[in-house]
């Protein structure tokens, strides 16, 4: 039990030390944190047995909402930008959700993909408003009224992201264990019974869908602010696929796995892109096949199993259980 908690705590401490211990990794890690939060959104849906191939949609909606807000309100405050962006993602989550929660499995996955492709083509085609393929700039927001230099601002973003990772990760884990989170997860095993408990499966799924959209939105707006520019690539299917990949890599259904997966993914990608840039999708696809077929519980599953073997106890599967 103590080992289980000690290792994540150490990892968090190590990440918190990055801006001082290894500044060259700071930006990379910040992007990984942002992506990790978005991946938790995909993970939430996996808990209900659903996979979305279009969640980059909410990632992009939040990022563009932030960019539009900053454009119309120069010097807008960081907190306002975050709130508006995430609210944008959550509201779109309700609207899209009202439609897609009527479907499961193939339809759910593909309709999400369709929505993201629609948004992507709007971003590309209506370039008078969206800047087309070049995207639009997202100028640095002020922080409590102060316009900061790049260095301190990036530091603030880094620790803000880390704080959000902890807060949202904690919230999501707690929500999974709560009555409403449990009702949501029963979508995976028995909707008939759910109906005969007087609950609308659509409503139950919608709750989780909006949470997942908001989480993707948090990831997207952080990514947009850190990069300073938002492009249609934010909504592209490859990004959605990447999120699904990371969620499955980390451990389908595990919140901690989403963050571990995102960190591993970003690090490997950064160093591999030098010599494997051309075959990156191919590596991902190949890896995805291997995980899905041979290690469906992902990195966290392997971690649990290893710990269990070392300590000689049955793996505590409270968190990773799907």
């Amino acid at each position, binding site marked *: 039990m103590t080992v289980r908690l000690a290792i994540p705590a150490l990892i968090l401490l190590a990440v918190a030390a990055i801006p001082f211990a290894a500044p060259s990794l700071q930006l990379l890690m910040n992007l990984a944190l942002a992506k990790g939060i978005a991946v938790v959104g995909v993970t939430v849906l996996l808990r209900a047995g659903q996979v979305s191939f279009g969640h980059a949609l909410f990632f992009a909606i939040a990022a563009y909402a932030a960019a539009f807000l900053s454009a119309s309100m120069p010097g807008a405050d960081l907190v306002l930008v975050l709130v508006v962006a995430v609210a944008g993602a959550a509201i779109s989550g309700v609207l899209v959700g009202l439609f897609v929660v009527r479907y499961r499995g193939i339809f759910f996955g593909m309709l999400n993909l369709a929505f993201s492709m629609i948004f992507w083509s709007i971003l590309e085609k209506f370039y008078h408003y969206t800047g087309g393929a070049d995207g639009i700039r997202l100028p640095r927001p002020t922080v409590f009224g102060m316009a900061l230099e790049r260095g301190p601002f990036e530091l603030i973003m880094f620790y803000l992201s880390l704080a959000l990772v902890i807060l949202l990760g904690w919230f999501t884990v707690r929500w999974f*264990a709560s*009555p*409403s989170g449990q009702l949501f997860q029963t979508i995976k095993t028995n909707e008939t*019974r759910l*109906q*005969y408990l007087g609950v609308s499966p659509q409503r139950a799924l919608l709750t989780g869908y909006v949470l997942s959209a908001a989480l993707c939105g948090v990831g997207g707006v952080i990514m947009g602010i850190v990069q300073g520019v938002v492009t249609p690539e934010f909504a592209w299917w490859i990004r959605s696929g990447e999120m699904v990949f990371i969620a499955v890599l980390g451990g389908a259904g595990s919140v901690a796995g989403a963050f571990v997966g995102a960190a591993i993914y970003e690090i490997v990608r950064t160093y591999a892109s030098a010599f494997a840039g051309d075959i990156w999708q191919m590596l991902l696809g190949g890896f995805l096949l291997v995980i899905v077929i041979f290690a469906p519980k992902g990195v966290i599953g392997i971690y649990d199993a290893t710990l269990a073997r070392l300590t000689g106890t049955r793996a505590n599967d409270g968190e990773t259980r799907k």
Partner: protein
Amino acid sequence: MSEILLEARNLQIRFGGVIAADNVSLTIERGKNMAIIGPNGAGKTTFLNICTGWLKPAKGTVLFEGRDVTSLAPRRIVRLGVARAFQIPQLFTEHTALENLLISVSARERLRHPLQDMHTIRQRGEMLHLLDMVGCADVADRPVVELSEGQRKLIDIAVALALKPKLLLMDEPTSGVASSEKFKIMEILVKALAEAKVTSVFVEHDMGIVSRYADEVAVWAAGNVQMRGSPEEILQHPDVIRDVIGEAV
């Protein structure tokens, strides 16, 4: 004259060539335990499906407490006080027995707090008691996939009871339960139903159980109610002995 809780009027439904409900009319009185008997394929499950809104009849109406519920979704009918246990247990297979009950009671109480652990809710004791009542206390923390068919049927009933319904519909509650246990379970169940003032309808093939625990019996054949009356009357009837009891033996 006692009060009518559920009333089915002229229900009709067909699947291709099969007429599964052929002008079915039946009233169920408050506080009674009614048994439905009849050969396989007679349309007993179909009747329960129509009463709970799972199937919409081509013709006819279902009234619950005088209110027309024919076109309501199952979950709306459940909210009015109708719970159901299934011929094939409908459980959350990745959850434990206790968790299945906790989820049920969470639904009943509409618990919403996003940060409260479901295992710490106030009704936990009540649910443990319910599990104990159906004789499954010892498997409370086992995932239901690992349990026997009989245990799953009992938990399915407990999940329905956790909703505190006015009317409980049970589809073959004791099939799959070891015959030595059947009477014990029914004994407890019928007592609990009486205590909680729950009306029940149960589909049953075991005539011993029917004669002992049913206040009334309805005989199903070829998509319709052929006969209805007290257990003594019905189980002695030559037609029933020939068509239903003979087959069940």
